[in-house]
């Protein structure tokens, strides 16, 4: 379970998060929607531990562990996965090798046995197949020469292989065509279960037609100003953020 209490954070002396309160119980998918500059990506980076974001107050725990006190790789090993808005290219680094190294690093950190090359090949191929992705995605270098859509699909493939307990999807739908959107959504839905929860950050209602959230939160000005069921997303789509933000103010 992810529990965020009164979380405040700043970048370069600029306050971005101004007191976030949010609980995502195991097994639930929560959507975070909001206008540009409201702090959505900052929230995802603060939770995953990126440098440059200074937490000024509040707390964030995952399964009782103090996330904010952990190195990024320890958060990953604890089960937190961030699907990047802009996936990073790693020239010369083979996707499969990268994933296996990552998976084994996580397993080592958790005190589990490492998985060998053959076992990994089976696992990763099966994941690629489930997501209707060609095998050669695994053979290519991490995100190098990938189209925008391929990069996002690769994030979902990594997620499928790493099997996180909590996934944060940072605008994974941006730049995707309808088909890719469906593949990405199927990937997330396939992981849904009692031990998986997700924070889906998006601008648009359309992703939430495919990944139906348990809760929808509206983030504006660094605070969650409104929460509701899936119908809230439809309201936002119909009326725009401005109306909802004005109403909350």
């Amino acid at each position, binding site marked *: 379970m992810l529990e965020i209490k009164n979380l405040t954070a700043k970048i370069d002396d600029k306050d971005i998060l101004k007191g976030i309160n949010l609980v995502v119980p195991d097994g639930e998918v929560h959507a975070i929607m909001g206008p540009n500059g409201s702090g959505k990506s900052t929230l995802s980076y603060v939770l995953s531990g990126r440098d440059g974001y200074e937490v000024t107050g509040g707390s964030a725990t995952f399964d009782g562990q103090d996330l904010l006190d952990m190195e990024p790789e320890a958060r*990953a090993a604890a089960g937190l996965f961030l699907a990047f808005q802009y996936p990073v290219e790693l020239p010369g680094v083979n996707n499969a090798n*990268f994933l296996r*190294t990552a998976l084994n*690093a996580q397993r080592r950190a958790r005190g589990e046995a490492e998985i060998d090359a053959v076992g990994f090949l089976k696992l990763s191929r099966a994941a690629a197949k489930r997501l209707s992705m060609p095998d050669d995605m695994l053979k290519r270098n991490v995100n190098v020469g990938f189209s925008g859509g391929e990069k996002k699909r690769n994030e979902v493939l990594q997620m499928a292989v790493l099997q996180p307990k909590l996934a944060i999807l940072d605008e994974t739908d941006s730049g995707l065509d309808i088909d890719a959107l469906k593949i990405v959504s199927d990937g997330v839905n396939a992981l849904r279960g009692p031990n998986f929860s997700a924070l889906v950050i998006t601008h648009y209602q359309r992703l939430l037609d495919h990944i139906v959230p348990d809760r929808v939160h509206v983030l504006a000005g660094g605070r969650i100003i409104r929460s509701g069921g899936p119908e809230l997303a439809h309201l936002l789509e119909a009326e725009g953020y401005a109306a909802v933000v004005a109403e909350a103010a």
Partner: protein
Amino acid sequence: MVAVAETLEAVQSVTDGGYKWGFSTDIEMDMAPKGLNEDIIRLISARKNEPQWLLDWRLKSYAAWLKTEEPDWAKINHPPIDYQDLHYYAAPKKTAGPKSLDEVDPELLRTYEKLGIPLRERAILAGVEGAEDERPPIAVDAVFDSVSVATTFRETLAKSGVIFCPISEAVQTHPDLVRQYLGSVVPAGDNYFAALNSAVFTDGSFVYIPKGVRCPMELSTYFRINARNTGQFERTLIIAEAGAYVSYLEGCTAPQRDENQLHAAVVELVAFDDAQIKYSTVQNWYPGDADGKGGIYNFVTKRGACRGARSKISWTQVETGSAITWKYPSCILLGDDSVGEFYSVAVTTNHQQADTGTKMIHIGRNTTSTIVSKGISAGKSNNTYRGLVRVMPKADGARNHTQCDSLLIGDQCGAHTVPYIESRNPTAKLEHEATTSKIADDQLFYCRQRGLSEEDAVGLIVNGFCKEVLKELPMEFAVEAQKLLAISLEGSVG
């Protein structure tokens, strides 16, 4: 006392982590007095029971050295080297010319075992040894300070006519071959350090592959500097007759010492028609400590002559060690359609300085050369690529492709690229590409978010950066090199 020393060592190995080959071997040595003069050269020659022509050649080289100035064009800085303050000959006492491994000092065998160098000829029989251990055998020549202490698999090689032995032995057993080729690629007075080497070289490997023979196994020389205040001046000579093929590997380490040690080697390769020589180096001489104290000064002249048509010489090097690296493995492309290749990874950290690259001299028609250089700088180090591509007037259709990539880690290091391109033939096609990049914070964060530690992430990114070069190394060496890269860069981030 012993316990204290051991504790100190253990503490040291934890605190400065990096260099894992820094132990020294306590062994009785036969040392020449310090200093360099004609008498010392006569002593070396006498110790090795050399013929007069070789002594004369040494003395001529010494005279040339005296007339030459130490080069100052490389982007390196060091206090003046006192050439009179070095021992020019150091040999383990018991092991002068062992006939078999049984005669080698067990202390030496243990040293090489510790280094992971297989000096035991393990008979590899199908079904006898475990599948895990079924690696292809590699013949090894182990050079300890000034002498070769063991050469393995010589009998197996002899069956196919391949000669693989210490050069000091080849002087005795194959004097005509040595006399014909020694100094034929790198003349005695070629440069300051080559002249010095020619005057005082002590040992090294000699390889001869007869016509049409494909050498049945990888050949390898393992160089180890052990003695204090000693220079190592090894000399390697490889000759591949028409249609021959050989893959040769070279590895180097040295103990961790506070003073600088001098290493000035010369390597000469000769390839005739259709012959191929693949020369791979993993150089891991002691680089000095985090403050730049100690470390090997590595001044090396390596050159290959593609004398025959369609001959090919490939240099692959992974340079992670030495306080100073001054090294330009080169190809003289004399034969028509001959091919020269240079693949290099040079890593510098702390206060290391590397000025390395290649020379490709196109003389024959339709000669081709490829240069791929990857420089990685971290800490306060400086890493320079210096390369020459020269096309002579008769080299119609010559082609070169050069790619120089630099990767910076941190903000106190330097990467420099100094290409010299000279074309005297209008049909030549020369390409030069260069990039400089930094390991970006977002790359590191991306890896860490997936569960990798920062150091593993750097290792992965650096290995990806070097991939084009590493894939040129023989498989087992490539694995070692990958680990070495990661170890070398430990602690260089953050």
